[in-house]
């Protein structure tokens, strides 16, 4: 029965695409920067997932190594992002993204 057949790589690709899209959509919709960061984390995770899946289906361990690199980038990004949010919050009480548009051209 189909249920116990092995899953093709395509399935993982679709799953990863889905997660990535949800993260992107979430980022565009929400106004709260923290949630936006979380969405970014989600997108990064989707990437990781695809890496690991590819490593597994191709039998090459390097895929998993790249996960580490993605993680460090994620960590760095969160650190700096949150620091920015904290700095912004200190200047202006709200942290609503739309208020901060002084950089208008």
């Amino acid at each position, binding site marked *: 029965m189909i249920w116990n057949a092995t899953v093709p790589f395509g399935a993982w690709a679709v*799953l990863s695409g889905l997660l990535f899209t949800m993260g992107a*959509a979430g980022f565009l919709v929400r106004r709260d920067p923290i949630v936006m960061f*979380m969405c970014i984390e989600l997108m990064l*995770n989707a990437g990781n997932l695809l890496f690991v899946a590819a490593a597994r*289906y191709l039998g090459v361990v390097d895929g998993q190594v790249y996960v*580490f690199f993605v993680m460090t980038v994620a960590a760095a990004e969160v650190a700096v992002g949150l620091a920015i949010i904290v700095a912004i919050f200190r200047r202006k009480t709200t942290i609503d993204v739309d208020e901060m548009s002084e950089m208008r051209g």
Partner: protein
Amino acid sequence: MTWLTFLIVSGIAVIFAGGLIFSRNAVHGAMCLVASFCAIATLFLLLSAEFIFVVQIAVYAGAIMVLFLFVMMLLNVQGQEGALAGRAPGQLLVALALGAALLGQAVWLVARGGEIISRPARIPAGFGSPEDIGTALFTRNLLPFEITSLVLLAAMAGAVVLARKAGLSPKPNGAPAGGKPE
């Protein structure tokens, strides 16, 4: 790795991701995200990447989400804004359209996929083990490793500078700068 387990676990991950997006309260969102990360971790397990599974739980769920929660607590965000109460309705439409386009492309690519790998390759015993990853990391990918260390250094420096209370540099008259943000 059968369709059943795959669908169950991925379903959990997707549902909790949706929870993050539609959560009214940021903290709820964070919790959903943690759950999603754990689901993804289990997926890694299914893909016989045990070490990554552990790292995922430790780093993402453990460190990053804790950081998020910590910042949320610091800024005591009450989640004033409604999930989708974005002022610009058009914004929502654009997001959905782009999301759909992206997903469509992903699916179309997979469908066209050419020689899609239907079956996972034979893998040696210690495939996902730390030794295996360690050797790969410190031989073939040494340069990226060093570069990531630089990235982290930069991030740390940035975070320290940004988070420092503005105006802490000693005033000409030597008195420590006042605490309040100018």
